[in-house]
């Protein structure tokens, strides 16, 4: 009981501390990671003491609208999605970095039992495998060719006895398919339950959505957990990742780019239908380096958005949807730019306008819409070439266009 009261007081103090430092006091897209002594990567928990002094900032996650997928119910439910504000805090030490993210979700969706059309809530954290030029970060939608990312994902699922990543399929067998009765059957069920892991927690390596591949060799050392506060209707998720493991070495950086994604199961959210943030700069407080990254990710676009609008509407709008009011002729013609300002960086937008082939993500099933080739693939090399021609070359036009594109994003939900 004592500990409960104590933690309630701490929680109260923490809330009070947030109130004193409103999110607007810090630069947009910047998270300051506090140094802590000990991070329990494998069993990270929202109630760990490491979060006590960590300050949270508001991070906005925008609905993924680049690609329109084919689930009728999901498309209807997510048609008018607004952006979600999450509270994110970060801590780090010499060997690991950890994040706490909390967001409001009035409906707790857990995937449990024998279901076909139920989707769990969940969240993910993405980091590049490596990065040198802050202007050439991986594409926000799960990386791009030559710029891989690690994605850490957890979903709200109940214990179920499947391989659970253990590869232990023999214990999936239905009890009635076992020649076991009485005590034997009870033992079998016991064993099966012990094998059941709590959550659907996985790591992926990816160079673009389609290429995403699960890492099952435990090369990525990480831990995740999410808990639902039924009273305040909020999820709190934590994720910890070792800075150096055989999947990536992030130990040399003073600041890291990370991004988050959130899934709302009640709206049929899953891969392809979610909310995601842009690349955020995580400054490891007290550690040298990373200033260029912080500067790049927190910079406001320099161009003239008004001039950019005129250009973009004239040059891009026939293929790209710009907003719900400015639809392209077909939703499958080209990636929708509805929320591009929400989740893309200035540098990515500039790079793609200038050289559409710089980042061509295999993000789209070409067989689904044969009339609309977003890119061509060289049969021999597998190299993707965008069907979009370079649109602008002078810096002024590009900067103006970027300034306008950065305004293309959904309204933030209150």
């Amino acid at each position, binding site marked *: 009981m004592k500990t409960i009261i104590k933690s309630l007081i701490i929680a109260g103090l923490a809330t009070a501390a947030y109130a004193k430092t409103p999110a607007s006091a810090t630069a947009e897209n910047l998270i300051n990671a506090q140094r802590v002594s000990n991070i329990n990567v494998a069993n990270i928990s929202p109630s760990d003491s490491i979060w006590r002094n960590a300050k949270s900032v508001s991070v906005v996650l925008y609905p993924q609208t680049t*690609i329109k*997928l*084919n*689930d*009728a*119910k999901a*498309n209807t439910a997510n048609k008018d999605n607004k952006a979600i504000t999450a509270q994110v805090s970060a801590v780090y030490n010499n060997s690991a970095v950890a994040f706490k993210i909390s967001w409001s979700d009035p409906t707790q969706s857990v*995937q449990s*039992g*024998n*279901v*076909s*059309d*139920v989707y769990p809530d969940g969240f993910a954290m993405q980091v590049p495998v490596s990065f040198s030029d802050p202007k050439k970060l991986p594409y926000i939608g799960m990386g791009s060719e030559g710029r891989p990312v690690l994605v850490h994902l957890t979903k709200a*699922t109940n214990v*179920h*006895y*499947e*391989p659970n990543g253990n*590869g232990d*399929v*023999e*214990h*999936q*067998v*239905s009890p*009635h*398919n*076992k*020649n076991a*009765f*009485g005590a034997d*059957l009870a033992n*079998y069920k016991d*064993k099966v339950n012990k094998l059941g892991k709590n959550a*659907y927690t996985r790591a992926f390596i990816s160079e673009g*959505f*389609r290429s*995403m*591949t*699960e*890492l*099952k*060799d435990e090369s990525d050392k990480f831990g995740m957990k999410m808990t639902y506060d039924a009273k305040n209707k909020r999820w709190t998720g934590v994720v910890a990742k070792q800075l150096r493991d055989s999947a990536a070495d992030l130990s040399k950086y003073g600041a890291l780019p990370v991004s988050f994604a959130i899934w709302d199961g009640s709206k049929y959210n*899953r*891969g*392809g239908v979610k909310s995601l943030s842009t690349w955020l700069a995580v400054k490891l407080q007290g550690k040298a380096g990373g200033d260029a990254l912080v500067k790049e990710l927190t910079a406001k676009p320099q161009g003239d958005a008004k001039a950019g609008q005129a250009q973009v509407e004239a040059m891009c709008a026939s293929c790209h949807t710009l907003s719900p009011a400015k639809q392209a002729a077909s939703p*499958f013609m080209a990636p929708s730019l509805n929320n591009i300002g929400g989740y893309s960086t200035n540098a990515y937008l500039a790079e793609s306008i200038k050289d559409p082939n710089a980042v061509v993500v295999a*993000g*789209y*099933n070409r*067989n*689904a*819409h*044969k*009339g609309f080739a977003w890119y061509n693939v060289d049969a021999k090399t597998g190299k993707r070439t965008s069907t979009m021609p370079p649109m602008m070359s002078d810096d002024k036009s590009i900067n103006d266009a970027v300034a306008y594109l950065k305004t293309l994003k959904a309204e933030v939900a209150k």
Partner: protein
Amino acid sequence: MSKRQLAMVMDLNKCIGCQTCTVACKTQWTNRNGREYMYWNNVETYPGEGYPKKWMELGGGFDAAGDLKEGVIPNIEADYGVPWDFSYDEIATFNFRENNPAAAFHADSTPTWGPNWDEDEGAGNFPSDNYFFYLPRICNHCTNPGCLSACPRDAIFKRDEDGVVLVDLDRCQGYRYCIAGCPYKKIYFNSKISKSEKCILCFPRIEQGLPPACAQQCVGRIRFVGFLDDVEGQVYKLVHKYKVALPLRSDYGTQPNVYYIPPTEAPAKFDAQGKIIEGSQRVPMQELETLFGKAVHGAIKTIKAEKDKRAKTGESELMDLLIAYHHEDMFRLDANYYQDVAKAKGVTNPLAPIDNRYAKGKFTNEIHFKAHA
């Protein structure tokens, strides 16, 4: 498109709805591991709600422009039906002396819907013009699969060697767009492993030269299996030579590779006095046209003409094919072909599947299956 394509022909005139195929498939593949509710092979009564319920209205497939259409993912309780279990545990521990034994054996849920809930109901008024026929359905292993096109992860692939469409269980993450994309709703979500699963055309059997279990066990001998490019094969002859075997709902644009001999013979209708209306047909041609397209008229004409020819002359190759005398003629499979493919790929284990993407991906630990732990 694959280099070669295996296909199945089902003769609807001979299907008696006995569900032996369904049971063969279920015991072989779907009675365990989260697949309990799935029927990779089912036999539904047409007209009827089908399995899953009203599958023809759930979208998927392609429109005329070749764009994948939106679809709906069916619900287990409402559309597939929840498989119930009996209280075996209670029986084992039940005190039969003190209690009424009847109470011990009960289902663990009260179903409200299931496959064949409306079996043999059909349409029309008994006895004047009621009708139905059985429609056995497996995955169509389409040439242009809706499921494959819907997958944002490249987790579904079509084998070059025989066109069998499979889910790469390593890549699949259970998004379920494939279910929305398949107009036949023949791909299912396994909630126990959070992945999609479907009919695999019994590829481990096929690679050994054996037909799929559903075809092998069919008591009506309605199922022919073979490669579409095997001009000596019965499948080729029924589909291409006589053009009497037609794909189901080809208007969905997926180019299915299961073909059906349409119902050709049905009793005539009765008038108000219960007398036969000469020349009438109980199964409306319009229905058959919906299912099999305009080509159904020609197919039925050919079958009737060959039937007459056989009656008059005693000879008709088509009638001999449809009678299906020998399994070895009906199932033109070739273990040597697969062995050659395996050899060319450098697979030395003669029992290994030619394509192991189905079970094991690049980052998957090796799986050893033990039936009894």
